[in-house]
């Protein structure tokens, strides 16, 4: 039996006195598409940002392909990564897609896509360009490869951001509310690309408000409430027969 692609054990995160995550367990195997739902303030984005250590967990373990991210205690700052090198290496294997895209605004579309492969992973530039062009082709933006992010619509920027994520051949793709900053008519184009990735067997963790995506595309749904997993399971089960009152309420208000 192979190790899960990602496993999170008893994860806690506090900001000063505010406990945001109170012990989260999560396991993602190759090809899993896990939707993380929850009201704002439930800790779902924090959970995602802990996975690649954009936020440092207060306690708990994170393993990527069976490799534990080592932490140590610092007198002033509490838990910190024991080896920033290890964290940087693991981060380069996880790709994040942000709510506000965060494409590098001084780089063109193609430059954005080859940046991490060339400057972090050390892929030869020519090779990276060939691959980036294929990825842009795939998200339907090959014609815009020499544009700058500021010249694209939100939906186009997010599709470029997805191409940028794919370019590092990530073990796990982390989506942090990828459609929340988009105008309603642009949400569809991004979801279509994501649906495609799910079908292709990518391992994805998706923080989202898109119920249809959670229900139809993901094979597992996690509902967070006040820093704890309130309900989880296969979407067909929990959407049909929610056991938690809160989740029932949540789906009735969002629908």
């Amino acid at each position, binding site marked *: 039996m192979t190790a899960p692609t990602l496993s999170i054990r008893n994860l806690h995160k506090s900001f000063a006195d505010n406990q945001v995550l109170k012990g989260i367990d999560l396991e993602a195997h190759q090809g899993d598409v896990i939707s993380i739902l929850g009201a704002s303030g439930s800790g779902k984005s924090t959970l995602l940002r802990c996975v690649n250590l954009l936020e440092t967990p207060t306690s708990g373990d994170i393993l990527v392909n069976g490799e534990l991210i080592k932490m140590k205690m610092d007198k002033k700052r509490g838990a910190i990564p024991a080896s920033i090198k290890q964290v940087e290496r693991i*981060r380069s294997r996880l*790709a994040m897609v942000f709510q506000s895209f965060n494409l590098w605004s001084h780089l063109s579309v193609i430059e954005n896509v080859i940046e991490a492969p060339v400057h972090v992973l050390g892929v030869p530039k020519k090779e990276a360009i060939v691959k980036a062009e294929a990825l842009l082709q795939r998200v339907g933006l090959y014609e815009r490869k020499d544009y700058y992010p500021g010249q694209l619509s939100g939906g186009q920027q997010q599709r470029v951001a997805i191409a940028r994520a794919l370019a590092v051949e990530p073990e796990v793709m982390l989506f942090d509310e990828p459609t929340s900053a988009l105008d309603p008519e642009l949400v569809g184009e991004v979801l279509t690309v994501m649906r495609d990735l799910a079908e292709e067997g990518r391992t994805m963790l998706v923080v989202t408000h898109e119920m249809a995506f959670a229900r139809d595309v993901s094979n597992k749904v996690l509902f967070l409430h006040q820093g704890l997993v309130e309900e989880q399971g296969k979407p067909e089960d929990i959407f049909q027969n929610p056991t938690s009152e809160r989740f029932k309420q949540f789906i009735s208000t969002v629908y």
Partner: protein
Amino acid sequence: MFSLYGYQDIFLEGAWLTLQVALLSLVLAVFLGLIAALAKLSHSIILTSIATLYTTIIRGIPDLILMLIIFFGGQVLINDTSYNLNEWFNEVVTGYYPDHEWTAYLPDYIDISPYIAGIVTIGFIFGAYMAETFRGAILSVDKGQLEAATAYGMNKYKRFSRVMFPQMMRHALPGLGNNWLVLLKTTALVSIIGLQDMVKIAGDASGSTQKPFTFYLVVALIFLFYTAVSTTVLKWAERKYSIQTR
């Protein structure tokens, strides 16, 4: 070529020297400014205090006075230090070898070249102004840009060189350009510490030819030429770097 009562060649050399001093000072100022800006934004109280002290003192004292202090004061400081170190070395050595004769281990008198002194002083002064420009520029870079760099595994040097630096320069360019123009004109002060720049030559030449208006007018025109070219280049650079946002 034009003739300036026989001073044209030495005058051109002076003009070239002025440009050299300005450009080398600029390099030093940008370097110091970046370091001071990063120090100001660091979490270390010591670094922040040193940087704040530096910018406060430099920006609060006239350039002319600073130049005189650094050039003449620096001269005295270096010579005194050298003298005292010599005395101390000799004392120590005599302690071990009582019949040792007094030796000058370090030169008794070190002459600071006005060229180096001018560059160091101007670089030092403008580093403080650059620090403020860069600090503002760094703060205006969107946090998400760096977060993406972090998320894709860049180390802190890559984050700075690949994302922070190119993005902050866009915000820094107008202020940087302004500082450069003032810096260029401040080089006129190096003439007072004896550097043969075009201002000094104009002073000497007008003294012997009794034509101050002619010589200072030429100096003014050369400065105007330098600043006009700079402004054009800056406009071009600002346009080049702003296209990317839209």
